[in-house]
């Protein structure tokens, strides 16, 4: 019986997670609390929040586990900069500065922040953290884990079999051959921010036709054994961490897109970029499918559990389930490096001898406090009142075309709003979608929105729904008809969320049925470039600045 804190930090998306007696008690990404998007710094606020949620003192922690090996990571970075001699000099200097300034001392920093003995702080492998988070949270046995990201200490991809002490590595592929690096380079090439714009590339790809397959196949080649190879000379990530691609890639694909120019998909120039995104997305999907087949061949497992940043690519996940060899596929929703904190905590719990309780509900973050929301709202000059039946009332407003900010319970783990911190509106109205995109969220018009639907109506509206991925929106499904144009992508798919009877949106969706609506458009409660809301003050801040029609914090209704 042990209390274990897992931590990821210092690369991107720092987070903390708390596992007590084998049960996941809390998990929180630092950006939600610090309000710094993709915050990589030591997650002091998230750590403190997790301890408070678990009602546990730092001194009572049996173990603190960091999600990767900082020393092996340093080694890879150093060796990589020497391999690029002499061009790696600038990278070497920058890397040493950040390594010596911060990263190398992370275990000591954790001990100091928590006030625990240094011996109680240990580390595990990066990809093993990802694998543990996937296998332990998956709703099935007889599984193999596949972890795919940019890079951990040395590997970018690995296949894992479940074992008592934590996942056992079956096979792996080393950096710089990396699907995460490939997709990051395309992201940067298209003018988006690396580690953040990857979703945009996926959204954009649906607008293009993949007419650059030959060129992209020269960059990323899949082998007969399911492994893949990058043309590494086109991806000099060492030298330009914000760019990840080299001149050779530009020679092959043409000039890169400048980041600031607004998108115009009617222009020939931007069509070319959309077509390139389509080819890159297709290549990624083929490579992921090949990895899935290899994982099945090597283990014979019937089910697949995914994690690592590439597992955030929901279109690739959908193809894995539809065309791959597995009966069921699950993705741990915080598949990126934030999720490493959860895996590290679970691995720590195993090494303390605890059995893992596999029940997993993503509502693991800080709680909503309606009393406080009401008090702060009134000091902001807003109207704040308790209402008897917020679901019924909100449903009426939604049916009338309102845009509703919805805050309920503990905030969600992972990049998606799942009804705990959501913006909602009708899904059958493209005008509302456009208002939401431009006025409320301030983001590119090609970014799709997602529908949310109760389990029992899912199969009538979406092919293959519900499945193990739809509760946390880690896959896409084809819409049966065009009744939800506001939240169906141009290619006819949707990143649908399905809600069971316990879900945060179940009551509201039931109330919507009285208005003839079986689904709602559900998007994250944040503006473009900002982290998802966590505390009620963040929700009020959003409400004042971005002006949705109404904000509900549990049963407190806030209007202007």
């Amino acid at each position, binding site marked *: 019986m042990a209390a274990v804190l897992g931590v990821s930090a210092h690369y991107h998306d720092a987070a903390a997670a708390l596992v007590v007696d084998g049960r996941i008690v809390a998990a929180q990404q630092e950006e939600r609390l610090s309000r710094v998007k993709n915050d990589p710094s030591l997650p002091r606020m998230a750590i403190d929040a997790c301890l408070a949620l678990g009602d546990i003192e730092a001194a009572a922690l049996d173990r603190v586990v960091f999600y990767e090996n900082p020393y092996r990571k340093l080694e890879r970075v150093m060796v990589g900069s020497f391999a690029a*001699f002499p061009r790696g000099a600038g990278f070497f200097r920058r890397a040493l500065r950040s390594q010596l300034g911060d990263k190398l001392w992370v275990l000591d920093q954790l001990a100091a922040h928590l006030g625990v003995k240094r011996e109680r702080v240990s580390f595990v492998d990066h990809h093993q953290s990802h694998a543990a988070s996937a296998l332990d949270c998956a709703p099935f046995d007889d599984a193999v884990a596949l972890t795919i990201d940019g890079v951990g200490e040395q590997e970018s991809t690995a296949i894992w079999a479940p074992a008592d002490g934590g996942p056992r590595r079956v096979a792996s592929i080393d950096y710089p051959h990396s699907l995460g690096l490939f997709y990051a380079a395309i992201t940067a090439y298209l003018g988006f921010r690396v580690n953040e714009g990857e979703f945009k590339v996926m959204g954009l790809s649906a607008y293009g036709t993949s007419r650059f397959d030959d060129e992209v196949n020269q960059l990323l080649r899949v082998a007969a054994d399911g492994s893949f190879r990058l043309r590494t000379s086109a991806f000099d990530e060492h030298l330009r961490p914000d760019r990840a691609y080299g001149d050779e890639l530009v020679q092959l694909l043409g000039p890169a897109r400048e980041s600031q*120019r607004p998108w115009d998909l009617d222009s020939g120039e931007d069509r070319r970029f959309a077509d390139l995104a389509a080819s890159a997305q297709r290549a990624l999907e083929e490579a992921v499918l090949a990895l899935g087949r290899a994982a099945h061949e090597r283990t014979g497992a019937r089910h697949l559990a995914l994690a690592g940043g590439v597992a955030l690519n929901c279109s690739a996940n959908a193809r894995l389930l539809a065309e791959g060899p597995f009966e069921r596929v699950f993705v741990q929703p915080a598949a990126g490096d934030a999720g490493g904190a959860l895996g590290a905590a679970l691995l720590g719990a195993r090494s303390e001898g605890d059995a893992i309780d596999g029940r997993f509900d993503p509502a693991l973050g800080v709680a909503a406090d309606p009393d406080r929301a009401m008090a702060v709202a009134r000091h902001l000059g807003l109207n704040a009142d308790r209402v008897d039946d917020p679901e019924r009332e909100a449903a009426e407003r939604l049916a009338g075309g309102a845009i509703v900010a919805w805050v309920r319970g503990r905030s969600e783990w992972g990049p998606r709003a799942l009804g705990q911190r959501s913006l909602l509106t009708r899904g059958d109205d493209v005008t509302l979608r456009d208002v939401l995109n431009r006025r409320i969220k301030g983001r590119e018009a090609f970014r799709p929105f997602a529908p949310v639907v109760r389990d029992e109506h899912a199969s009538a509206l979406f092919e293959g729904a519900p499945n193990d991925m739809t509760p946390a929106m880690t896959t896409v499904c084809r819409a049966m008809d065009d009744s939800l144009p506001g939240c169906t992508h141009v290619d006819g798919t949707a990143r649908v969320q399905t809600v069971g009877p316990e879900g945060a949106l179940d009551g509201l969706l039931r109330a919507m049925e009285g208005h003839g609506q079986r689904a709602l458009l559900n998007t994250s409660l944040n503006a473009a470039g900002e982290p998802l809301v966590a505390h009620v003050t963040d929700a009020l801040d959003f409400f004042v600045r971005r002006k949705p029609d109404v904000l509900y914090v549990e049963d407190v209704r806030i209007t202007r």
Partner: protein
Amino acid sequence: MRALADFVYTFSWRLPGRRWRRLLAFAEAEAESALELRCAAAATSDPERAALYLKHAADEARHAEILQRRATLARGSAVSLPRRGHARLFERFGEPVFIAYVHRGERRGRRQFEAHVRFFERRDPALAAALKSILADERRHESYTAELLAGPLADGAPAARRRARRVDLGDRWRRVGSALTGPLFAVLMLLLYVLAAPLALGARGDRAGWRTHD
């Protein structure tokens, strides 16, 4: 005295090519303090102060937008804000020190903006007007933080002010320090890089394909 301060604060406007960079640096500082104030709003136990911090944050976010737009105009092409963290002073030192620190920053910002407005009044009236609109907010920020330190946060306010002053001076000293040691560090690292490179000659290449583990 004011003439000297004006000269110091406005000196770099006179340098060629610096204007948009400086405006962008201002925008960054405003955006950073907006984030920190939102954290403070979440952290304070008092709902009234939470509301004050949220309003303040909205002002700073608006300032960041105005200055970013001005930087874009001065440069002639779009500039975006680099994303940085913030100092997390509330979390590190508590509310009184945080507010004392914010108050210091507002006072300094107000003085600087007064100098900038005077500098641009005839040279670039549109920019001067934009800066003036910001200045009005900064005066309000300066005074409400003073009121908090005299009222609800008065307990231990003198100590908080002293602490904030040390933190502020420490920050500035560190900036000077890293500006001075940066080049030295760069030279040393280049030397180390060249000397150590032969040792890494046998290093692992970029091996593709599966590695199997038993």
